[in-house]
């Protein structure tokens, strides 16, 4: 009997990494998006601090869902190497803050929107695109998640909303800035951008 439970436990152990590997890009993104939607729709959180509570609950989901280093790195493209390691680290943190500030209110304002997942396409051996649509009362917005496989998990490194890639859009801006300025200036601009929102 003991032996059987032991074998059972061992099998479970083997099973777990296998199941995480088996999750397809679409399934992974959908699971994360659904988690976020669940938090947003939670009716018990209409309290005074609902916004803060929801933000705190969503943050870990996003942390799991996005590969923020990959995302930040791609917004710099080949300029990434012109930053030294500590600058790179600060850039990733600042960029995450910029995105948080810009999109938190937008995401928290979602109420009755429906998200439909259509299909996934492999774009490289370790990268894929997940096609979805956000359906509101008046319109339908196509959203594509670009995901990359790292350590057995698919993580989002770019979001394409209505044909506009977030990473490419930021890269065009950073390219322009870095063509005329040093990496330090870029970090300074980002620091100010983060501060400006806070006050």
């Amino acid at each position: 009997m003991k032996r059987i439970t032991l074998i059972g436990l061992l099998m479970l152990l083997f099973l777990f990494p296998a199941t995480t590997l088996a999750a397809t890009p679409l399934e992974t993104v959908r699971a994360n998006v659904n988690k976020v939607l669940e938090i947003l729709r939670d009716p018990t959180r209409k309290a005074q601090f609902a916004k803060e509570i929801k933000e705190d609950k969503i943050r870990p989901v996003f942390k799991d869902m996005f590969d923020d280093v990959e995302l930040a790195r791609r917004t710099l493209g080949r300029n990434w190497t012109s930053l030294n390691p500590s600058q790179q680290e600060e850039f990733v943190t600042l960029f995450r803050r910029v995105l948080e500030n810009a999109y938190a209110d937008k995401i928290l304002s979602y109420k009755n929107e429906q998200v439909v997942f259509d299909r996934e396409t492999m774009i490289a051996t370790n990268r894929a695109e997940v096609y979805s649509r956000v359906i509101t009362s008046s319109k339908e917005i196509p959203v594509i998640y670009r995901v990359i496989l790292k350590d057995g998990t698919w993580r989002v490194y770019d979001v394409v909303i209505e044909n506009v890639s977030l990473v490419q859009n930021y890269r065009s801006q950073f390219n322009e800035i870095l063509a005329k300025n040093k990496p330090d200036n870029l970090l300074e601009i980002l620091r100010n951008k983060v501060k400006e929102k806070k006050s």
Partner: protein
Amino acid sequence: MRKRWIVIYALAIILGCCLPCMAESLREKAPDTPVLSPPLQEEDKEYEDEEPIAIADPLEPFNRAMFTFNDRLYFWVLKPVAQGYKEVVPEPARVGIDRFFNNLSFPVRFVNCLLQANLKGALSELGRFTINTVWGLGGLLDPASNEDINLRPYREDFGRTLSFYGIGHGFFITWPLLGPSSLRDTFGFAGDTFLSPLSYVEPWYAGTLAKGYDKVNAVSLRIGDYESLKEAAIDPYISVRNAYLQYRAKGGGRSGLIAPPAGKDKER
């Protein structure tokens, strides 16, 4: 009618003045193609597929001034008007009106599908127009998008047709009122004007008023979009310029006043 010609001539003269500098900028950067860069290093290869699309921008100072003008116009005039309008008119009505104007511009999409030898698109558009006009109360409803019929719109326009025949953007222009555009898409816009039924409404200002109303109605459905785009941007002008290029490259309809309009519908 005469007034419209004056506008078109004026446009042609302005563009004529721009041509020399365009020629120069064309030599610097081939339009619509990624910026050529030193050979890719091993590490850069994975970025290869998503180099940002570039456009020449010799008019940048003018464009930035116009961008600021449009920005003010949006926050001071267009947004308050659209907000007031939104308070009065319920959303389903505004969605219907948006569809109505969209249905009305069917000739633009139909002819440009044909010009691009896109028979499937032309037939789909023809079917949509017929069904939505007859059974959709003149376009207020969109029965053609129902699952049973499922005819997708093809948002083609003359700018996209020119692109189809290999004509690049030329350079970037921000027009007051009309927003982001390019040399090519400006010609495209002029071409589409001839195909838009609203251009033939007499007296001429009635058509213009109708276009303005369409604009306000459309904006009322997407208040907040431009705001968040601007909020998220480090340099809003560059962000809008890039968004316009990406949107047009993948087959989005013509730009709205500020940012590209959302299609309830996308083709391709």
